[in-house]
């Protein structure tokens, strides 16, 4: 147990060192990349071991660093919640470590040197690890900004492209506005608690209205980082332009750090939660989930599509958190715990399958240099392993049994269906409606991933590069395999995971979830055995047996290869295939209100061209008015700029007088 703190220290130091070594890539060449990734691997293993040790023993460790301000030393504390997120970081980092060396080979030549990429990757991981272990608001904010700024440089990595620069700037802007909100919300709590250490914040006697203000600021700040609608606009811009293994880290892990911050704030630091907060979180989560998946359906850039799915899944996580807040705020602690565990379960699930999908997208990008799925097709036969792992990711993210995405959505449904215990009739009817939104989201996610897998991996290649695609290196496949196996394991053995997570609610809320695993490792029974039960191992067994039986019975009889039938029309060529746009057309039409659609047919020299642009409405609805407002204000302020030196001195005099008047 005493080794947990040194281990986490090793994790932080190794990741910092990995960044340092990458800086010498010009001199060391390929060795630098290998060394740098090996050190990240050390960090991953250390984080995994330290995190699981804390989860298993349920201990809390704290330590005061010899760093920081004289009156505010930096404090470190690792409890079960931190341990859980350490495990999450470690698990994803392992895959990235295996995948990275093969992937960064393309950056060894040219001016996109590995020095920048590896250096900031190390800093980025360090920042994330420090956020998890920080135990005072000051240290937290320093680590948070380290994470934000280093990831800004990772987004801006390929800065020759103006779109990438724009995305990076947008990201930096949003990250700072979010950081400011978080700082203010800590400030409110600190004002009541008399200090920035988390211990003081926990015991602060906060007035209910001020607590709500702090909560709103925290929701804005962490929601901006997590990508809740309508604060998500930076996410589909920034995540895709980074290198793919970094996209995996950003989408898979960094968004989860925001979830961590939100959970730490609402469930740990704030003493009394209010149910109305839960309603707000539930509403925001539901809309994020639905809009995220709808925008993803309209997107044909593979990495942007996956980024929009992050918005969806963050929405699902926040649905769980909203339910938890509602139940806790109305005094139903046990149900609140179920919802919290469901949300955290989905957090780790999303980290796994989203990283898996980003690594798969990276593999395709690596070999085909193509991100537009309308140019792909037939990749399953050229990249069978990547295809298989990508399929696992698709099934998991679509929440289909027996993979992991299903378990966490099932738990969320179970929590939502316990809404009948609430006293308020309106809340009682809102909870099932939120559950129905979740169901709609799930069904649309299935549609979206049928589109993705069908267009990318099935059918025939639609372009020349794709036709000549080759399977990626062993390391890149191994990284994906690791995540795919974890996806299956977390889907089949949910009880193990829930038992591991038991320490989190025990420490935060004072009660565990022992009834969920009371009937042995086979049965997951969140509320009670009479209410609902799910035996994932038996489900997997039944699927396997049914398949085996059918295959055995039907083994006789041969298979003959032939041309496609297609109702007897001429032999299909790749251009006759259904495209992604065509696939999504009915959904675009049904949910047309939610998109900004620009569709026209342009005739040019007798050739008609169909143009279609589908955009996110949130730009027009939320951001352009703000931009206009800011520009309008700036124009007003610009009047001060007369250019006359004496006028400026006059302003100075005026300011001085006003200041002196205030001070006196």
């Amino acid at each position, binding site marked *: 147990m005493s080794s947990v703190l040194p281990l986490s220290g090793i994790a932080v130091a190794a990741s910092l060192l990995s960044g340092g070594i990458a800086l010498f890539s010009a001199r060391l060449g390929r060795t630098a990349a290998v060394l740098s990734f090996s050190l990240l691997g050390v960090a991953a293993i250390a984080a995994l071991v330290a995190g699981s040790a804390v989860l298993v023993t349920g201990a809390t460790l704290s330590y005061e660093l010899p760093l920081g301000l004289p009156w505010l030393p930096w404090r470190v504390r690792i409890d079960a919640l931190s341990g859980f997120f350490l495990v999450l970081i470690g698990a994803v980092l392992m895959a990235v470590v295996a995948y990275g060396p093969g992937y960064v080979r393309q950056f060894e030549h040219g001016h996109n040197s590995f020095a920048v990429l590896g250096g900031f990757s190390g800093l980025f991981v360090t920042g994330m690890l420090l956020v998890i272990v920080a135990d005072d608001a000051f240290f937290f904010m320093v680590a948070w900004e380290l994470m934000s700024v280093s990831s800004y440089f990772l987004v801006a990595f390929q800065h020759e492209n103006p779109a990438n620069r724009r995305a990076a700037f947008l990201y930096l802007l949003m990250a700072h506005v979010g950081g400011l909100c978080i700082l203010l919300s800590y400030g409110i709590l600190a004002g009541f608690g008399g200090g920035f250490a988390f211990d003081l914040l926990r015991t602060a006697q906060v007035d209910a209205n001020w607590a709500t203000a702090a909560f709103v600021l925290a929701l804005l700040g962490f929601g901006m980082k997590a990508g809740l609608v309508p604060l998500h606009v930076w996410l589909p811009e920034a995540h895709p332009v980074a290198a793919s293994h970094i996209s995996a880290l950003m989408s898979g892990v960094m968004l989860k750090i925001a979830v961590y911050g939100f959970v730490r704030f609402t469930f740990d630091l704030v003493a009394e939660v209010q149910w109305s907060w839960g309603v707000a979180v539930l509403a925001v989560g539901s809309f994020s989930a639905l809009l995220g998946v709808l925008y993803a359906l309209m997107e044909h850039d593979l990495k942007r599509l996956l980024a929009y799915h992050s918005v969806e899944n963050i929405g699902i996580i926040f649905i769980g958190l909203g339910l938890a807040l509602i139940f806790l705020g109305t005094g139903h602690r046990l149900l609140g715990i179920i919802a919290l565990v469901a949300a955290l379960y989905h957090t780790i699930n999303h980290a796994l399958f989203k990283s898996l999908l980003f690594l798969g997208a990276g593999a395709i990008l690596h070999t085909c240099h193509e991100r537009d799925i309308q140019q792909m*097709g*037939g990749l399953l036969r050229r990249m069978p392993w990547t295809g298989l792992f990508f*399929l696992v990711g698709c*099934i998991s993210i*679509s929440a289909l049994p027996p993979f992991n995405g*299903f378990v966490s959505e*099932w738990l969320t*449904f179970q929590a939502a*269906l316990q809404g009948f215990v609430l*006293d*308020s009739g309106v809340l*009682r*009817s809102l909870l*099932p409606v939120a*559950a*129905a939104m979740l*169901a*709609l989201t*799930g*069904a*649309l996610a*299935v*549609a979206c991933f*049928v589109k993705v897998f*069908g*267009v990318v*991996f*099935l*059918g*025939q290649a639609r372009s020349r590069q794709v036709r000549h695609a080759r399977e990626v290196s062993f390391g890149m496949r191994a990284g994906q395999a690791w995540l795919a196996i974890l996806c299956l394991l977390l889907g089949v053995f949910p009880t193990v995971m829930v038992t591991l997570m038991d320490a989190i609610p025990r420490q935060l809320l004072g009660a565990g979830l022992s009834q969920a695993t009371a009937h042995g490792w086979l*049965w997951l029974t969140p509320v009670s*055995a*009479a*209410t*609902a*039960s*799910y035996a994932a191992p038996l*489900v997997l067994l*039944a699927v396997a047996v*049914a*398949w085996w039986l*059918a295959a055995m019975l039907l083994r006789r*009889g*041969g*298979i*003959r*290869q*032939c041309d*496609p*039938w*297609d*109702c007897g029309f001429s032999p*299909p060529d790749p251009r*006759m*295939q*259904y495209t992604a746009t*065509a696939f999504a*057309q*009915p*959904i675009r039409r049904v949910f047309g209100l939610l998109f900004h659609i620009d569709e026209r047919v342009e005739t040019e020299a007798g050739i008609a061209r169909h143009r279609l642009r589908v955009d996110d409405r949130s730009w027009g609805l939320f951001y352009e008015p703000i931009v206009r407002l800011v520009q309008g204000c700036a124009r007003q302020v610009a009047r001060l700029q007369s250019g006359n030196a004496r006028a400026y001195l006059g302003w100075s005099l005026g300011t001085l007088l006003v200041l002196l008047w205030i001070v006196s």
Partner: protein
Amino acid sequence: MDSVLSPAAWLLAGIQALLFTLAAPLLSGWVKKVKSRLQNRRGPPLLQPYQNLWKLFGKEALVAHTASPVFRAAPYIVFSSTWLAASVIPLIATKLPTAAVADVIVLVGFLALGRFFLALAGMDVGTAFGGMGSSRETLIAALAEPAMLMAIFTLTMTAHTTNLSSVVDHTLESSYSLRPSFLFALGAMLLVAVAETGRIPVDNPATHLELTMVHEAMILEYSGRHLALMEWAAQLKLMIYGVLIANVFFPWGIATELNLGSLAIGLAAITSKLAVLGIALAVSETVLAKMRLFRVPEYLNLALLLALLGIFSHVILEVGA
């Protein structure tokens, strides 16, 4: 949970699942027969679906050379996931151990898993029709699934459980009362069932007019035993929705104890309920015409509205505050 440990219950669950699978072609044969009679035709014999399946199983399977392994694996996955969904539903007796393994949300998940691979199989060969069918199927499913889950939630909120066996038991044990929420949920469920099983007015199982197909378009490239499995899975799905409606909304007659007498009554009850539902389906298919695809969302909106009203009337009228 006590039923989980009893071997007799497991045996019964196995027999039920087998019976489910074996009876599914009979139900679609029955619907076809009644429909033909209503249209003044003699129609195929009642057992014709079995003969079709048998014939297809004996034939060689043709696979397009553009197909990937997904195409060959899909029939097995679709069939086995549909069959697993079926094994969760109480057919002639309640207190099933399988219902504890997988509750009603898992059942919906199984159906979604089957649909996922069915739609992928449609896109695999790379023909235009396959993609069209997959696109339409996922649209219909995306709108039907929330309606179905909301209708089921209405029931599970009344029974306070998502275990299908317990839901049925709860309805049987509670005193008989008229409930508007049940009425709305039933309406929603009927609409969803028609949409999900690809019947008129949403899809036409008998059509081979290319532009109107949904389900048939996805399985256009299949032949031999692959086609047989796909068709059987479709018949199973019809049976699943039939039994769900029959036993969840009208559970009377189902066996709650494991003795021969009540099991026989249960068998007779479900047979007659399904026969009536089959006639109702045949009548509606005869009097209605197939809708345009873009009318289908309106139809499913109606199902959603009914399900929503079911939840509201449950909360407002039945629980009180």
